[in-house]
């Protein structure tokens, strides 16, 4: 990546180290848009703080690089710096209108990028806790969440970011909605429905129908992981779930964490005892079943970020930590590959 976007890894700047939830496929022409994110430090440093280095001309991250990658030829057609000094947290494409929308990090601004003019426009700040997912509805409105757990959406018809009057589901016994921002969102076979998991301790699976009513219809489908000691503000890195994906059997799959250490234990979340449990959720019966456990000897497997289905109908789950990051392939029987799977224009 550093060679393609002419930002060498030994430049002394924070590096073009990763692509976060920022793959946005353009299905019509086979272009995969992808944008980089920050966190990797300059070569001589151990860590990088974008706040600390914001005014450091030598070290500051140059800015999120946006690439247009032609999946037919495996070539990068062009690239741009989408916005300076910030990384791209997540990305969605409005293919009909030729626009990309993103959330920047660290300032948590929503940006619109016009693919025709190749220019970006700052639509405004969302908050401080950067959401990790954007999605788009039939009316071309772009949705994400704010720090307090409310849905927000950019409506291009009025060129304004609006805030929902209601909060996404959370556990009222020990939470108040704060930090209940979207982590992963997947479209369902029903084009009006999405399923989502937030980035918060004790996350809950939820159904969102953004095109219903004024602010959509939301249903709480319950917690995805085990109960925990509520006197401990549990780490999201431990109590994690992600990888939402529909397979060719019409079932929703995701990976949730399971752990056996006490919740107040200081053992790192990369402890090998952390398990990644593959769940199969039947959206008709609202029942779920444990169908597998991801395994790598001596390593934690619970921190799955995203799931996908390939053209052969098999599942794939991306594991972020511990390093090295990797991908699990979960083959499915032929009986689970019969139905078409929904397209997902966001990362």
């Amino acid at each position: 990546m550093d060679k393609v976007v002419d930002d060498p890894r030994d430049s002394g700047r924070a590096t073009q180290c990763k692509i976060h939830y920022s793959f946005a496929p353009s299905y019509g022409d086979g272009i995969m848009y992808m944008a980089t994110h920050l966190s990797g430090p300059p070569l001589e440093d151990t860590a990088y703080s974008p706040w600390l280095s914001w005014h450091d001309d030598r070290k500051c991250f140059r800015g999120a690089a946006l690439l247009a990658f032609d999946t037919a030829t495996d070539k990068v057609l062009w690239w741009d710096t989408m916005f300076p000094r910030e990384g791209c947290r997540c990305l969605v494409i409005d293919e009909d209108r030729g626009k990309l929308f993103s959330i920047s990090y660290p300032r948590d601004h929503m940006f619109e990028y016009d693919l025709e003019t190749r220019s970006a426009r700052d639509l405004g700040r969302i908050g401080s806790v950067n959401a990790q997912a954007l999605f788009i509805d039939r009316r071309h409105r772009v949705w994400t969440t704010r720090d307090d757990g409310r849905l927000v959406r950019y409506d291009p018809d009025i060129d304004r970011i609006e805030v929902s009057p209601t909060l996404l589901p959370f556990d009222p016994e020990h939470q108040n909605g704060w930090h209940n921002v979207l982590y992963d969102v997947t479209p369902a076979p029903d084009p009006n429905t999405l399923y989502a998991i937030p980035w918060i301790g004790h996350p809950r699976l939820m159904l969102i129908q953004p095109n219903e009513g004024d602010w959509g219809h939301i249903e709480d489908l319950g917690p995805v992981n085990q109960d925990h000691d509520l006197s401990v503000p549990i780490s999201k890195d431990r109590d994690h779930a992600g990888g939402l994906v529909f397979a060719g059997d019409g079932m929703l799959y995701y990976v949730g964490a399971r752990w056996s250490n006490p919740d107040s234990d200081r053992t790192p979340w990369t402890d090998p005892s952390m398990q990644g449990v593959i769940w199969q959720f039947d959206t008709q019966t609202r029942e779920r079943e444990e169908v597998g456990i991801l395994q790598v000897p001596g390593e934690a497997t619970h921190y799955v970020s995203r799931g996908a289905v390939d053209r052969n109908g098999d599942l794939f789950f991306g594991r972020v930590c511990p390093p090295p990051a990797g991908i699990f392939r979960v083959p499915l029987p032929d009986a689970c590959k019969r139905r078409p799977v929904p397209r997902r224009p966001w990362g």
Partner: protein
Amino acid sequence: MGIKKKDIDSKLAEELQLEAEVIQFLQGTFTKEGSMVAFPLSFPGASKPIPPDESRITALAHHPDRFVYGGTSGAATHLFVGIFARSGGCILDLGVVEAATACVSIMCADDTLVAAVNGPAGGRFVSTGYQPMPRDLLQEWHLGRFPIEEIASVPSGGKITDAVLLPRAQCVIATTVSALLRLDLESGDLREITQLDEVGTLALTNAGSAIGIEPARGLWRYDPESDRLDRAICAIPNGSWSASTVWSVDSRDGSVLLFDDDGSLYRFTDNDTLDGPLAQVPIGPVTSAATTKDGRFYLFAGDGIAKQFIFDPVTNALTDNGVAVSVLQSRRYGYVFGAACTGPDGQIYFGETDYNGHLWIYFPSIRK
């Protein structure tokens, strides 16, 4: 080939050590001295905040005996009051100023709150009543709004650049693109004093006059009692100067602090002299500043993500206090601040000029 437990243990120890180092590094980024509290523009739990794109705070003023007042800019302009004394703890939206999108200045006159606002039709001065102390915002409350009324509008649709209240004369001095104006609050008369070569921001001096900068000439002063404008009362040093500097009044002696465009700090004294540079802010632009009761001067500077700096007039030291963060009331990072004023106990109010802007209350550390 298996992985041995001792290899796992040493790997974990290494990870924990690295994590500790990273934490120390990252925590050095944010507010290091004093405490910041970000307060939403609402009565939390009892009212809806000012809409996010109407909440860029661009003006603040603290009434000597009452509360902090502010004005916002954006899709609409709101006036608001922050009630933090005793069993208070709320921000009350005083209402939308009709047909306005920017609040340039807010001023606490004797009997009325005055705001200078701009909209598509130009600049206006409006007023509204002061809020009384409410009963008890933990138990029961009865809060309401006074109407916001127009006092005067700028002729020919001119826009107001800045405005300052001269309390002894109970008049407002304001600047537009090219003119200096005077508004008499009792009569509501608005007249032009003169045209200036370049107009910008204003400050109030200890003597009750208004001062501003004409970069080509120097500082000017307007005395409301004699209705006299004296230009070039004080030369400005070589450097880069615009008319729109950030001013602040030292609450100890009423002297006025100001910056050139490169962030050099100067003090304008009662002798009509400009002392300095006292310090050099390493990043620009300076966007907001205020002093606490012992003269320590707090400012925000920097584009995109502002940093707070502290100037100590005793040592003339300028220290980097990091990026603003609030972990009380609202958990939030503060990136853009465009207004500031001092409270009665030496706390500094900073207005966040950002989408979903909060009123930030900074409590300086106590000097040993």
